[in-house]
């Protein structure tokens, strides 16, 4: 199944350290996480890790863990859980991820341990729609699980905005469009401290606000649920869901209606920067 350049095969236990190095290059996790997950893990099985090599160097890998899972009543089945799927940046978008997923499904090339299903945590909706659903036919399964969250500070969001700003500033048309907008959005959201997002020539700037400073000069005030707004930016909801939530009074948008096109443009820029 390989072309001449890349070789795909189940890993050997001696390759574990090189696999961890590849994962470290591609994911932001502390070193002790990788040691826990791949070095000290008593349940890990090298035959459930597929590696892609180019000139003897591992440039991609797919790691699965085996577990027995209940799926209904007394029905327990053997299953796989996708732990990580990584391709080095320079080889991304060349079909290697697709090869890994298809090889995992193909019994003849991968020891599935009799697994009938495979679970995966996919945090990126775009990746799900364009990769996992299209190639390996993953379906969402966990809507009956509720996630509860409370944000005590906005550090994570600030980091996310910094990443998005790098993308925005690297594209002059986005940066100039943003600097002309002159919008400030006050967010008073359940589950997070209140904050203001301001557009400027430097991209999107965020400031936490307290009850004494209520940001009364803001162009818009958004009241509602932090998770909804976060997932709106992440693309789990379309703009139609926003209108639906507005109608259901789950979210409130207060401001000059004539500035709504600007707000919509900001939403599009933020979304494209998020997905870049």
């Amino acid at each position, binding site marked *: 199944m390989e072309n001449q350049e890349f070789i795909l095969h189940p890993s050997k236990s001696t390759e574990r350290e090189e696999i961890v190095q590849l994962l470290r290059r591609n994911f932001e996790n502390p070193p*002790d996480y990788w040691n*826990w997950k791949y070095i*000290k*893990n*008593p*349940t890990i099985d090298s035959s459930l890790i597929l590696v892609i090599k180019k000139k003897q160097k591992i440039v991609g890998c797919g790691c699965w863990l085996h*577990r*027995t*899972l*209940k*799926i*209904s*009543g*007394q*029905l327990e*089945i*053997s299953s796989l859980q996708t732990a990580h799927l990584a391709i080095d940046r320079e080889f991304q978008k060349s079909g290697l991820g697709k090869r890994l997923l*298809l090889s*995992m*499904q*193909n*019994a*003849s090339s991968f020891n*599935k341990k009799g*697994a*009938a*299903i*495979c*679970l*995966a*945590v996919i*945090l990126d909706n775009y990746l799900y729609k364009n990769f*996992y*659903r299209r190639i390996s*036919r*993953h*379906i*969402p*399964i*966990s*809507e*009956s*699980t*509720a*996630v*509860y*969250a*409370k*944000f*005590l*500070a906005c*550090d*994570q969001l600030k980091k996310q905005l910094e990443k998005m700003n790098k993308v925005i500033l690297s594209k002059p048309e986005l940066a100039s469009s943003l600097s002309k907008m002159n919008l400030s959005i006050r967010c008073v*959201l*359940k*589950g997070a401290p209140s904050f203001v997002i301001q557009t400027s020539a430097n991209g999107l700037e965020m400031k936490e606000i307290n009850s004494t400073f209520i940001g009364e000069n803001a162009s818009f005030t958004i009241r509602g*649920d*932090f*998770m909804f707004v976060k997932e709106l930016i992440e693309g*789990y909801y379309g703009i139609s869901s926003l209108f639906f939530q507005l109608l259901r009074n789950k979210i409130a948008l207060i401001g000059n209606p004539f500035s709504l096109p600007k707000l919509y443009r900001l939403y599009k820029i933020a979304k494209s920067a998020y997905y870049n």
Partner: protein
Amino acid sequence: MRNNSEFKFRTYGPEDDQQLFSLFNKTFRNYAGFVKRTREYWSWYYKSRPDVDENSIIILEDNNQQIVAYAVVGKTGKIWDFCYDSENEKAEEIASLLLEKSVSYLVENGVDEIKFHAPESDKIVRKICREMGFTTNNYRYLFLTVVDFVPLIAKILEQSDQIGFDNELFQIVLTDAPPGIDDSIFVEFGAQSVSVTAKLTRHPKVKIVTSILALTEIIFKKKNLWWSLLKREIKIWPHHNILKGLQFLGKLQLDDVWFTPLGDCY
């Protein structure tokens, strides 16, 4: 933090393992996605997590020294396991005490985000989270694909109490099976047994043509059978056996609600 003479918090010790497993298994065993807590799984997946130490396992016990709730609280802000005895008559108080303690532990450790999972149907957790200013949403990051339909269908039919078919042969044709994956599944019902195989030479009585995605969604009840038929996501031949085909597909559908603790996701 509320003081309560009936319940008290204490630190974890390895002698607690059996009680913790029993509580977890009792609480969540009815959900699909349930992974039984065993010593091996618990030792590595929870106790050895880089952000968990023995102080991160918060245990609440009653006056009889019975564990009524526990939480595995990672210093990254993730409550990997949040489990309480929902059958206890003071379940709401127990859950509330546990969450308050978990939050104060995380605040002491300087986290900026707290996150945990609970079944959507758990009204107690929903209520106390609302009171404590948590935001909530459905967890939408867990996905599933079927890597081999033959053992899955065989297991489902093995567990099925009333099969309702006698001497019938069904064939499911998967129109989009990638190379290397069987594109047919044959299910043969005998007088007492069912066999599921990928290869058979005989002609089926009922042939169902569908896609991998549609069949997965049907099995995990993400799709309505009639609606899928109308949308031509499933086609059944011969036409006079459409009802039989739908009845067969209905036997494959799984009903249980899914729940996955945060710890089982990562």
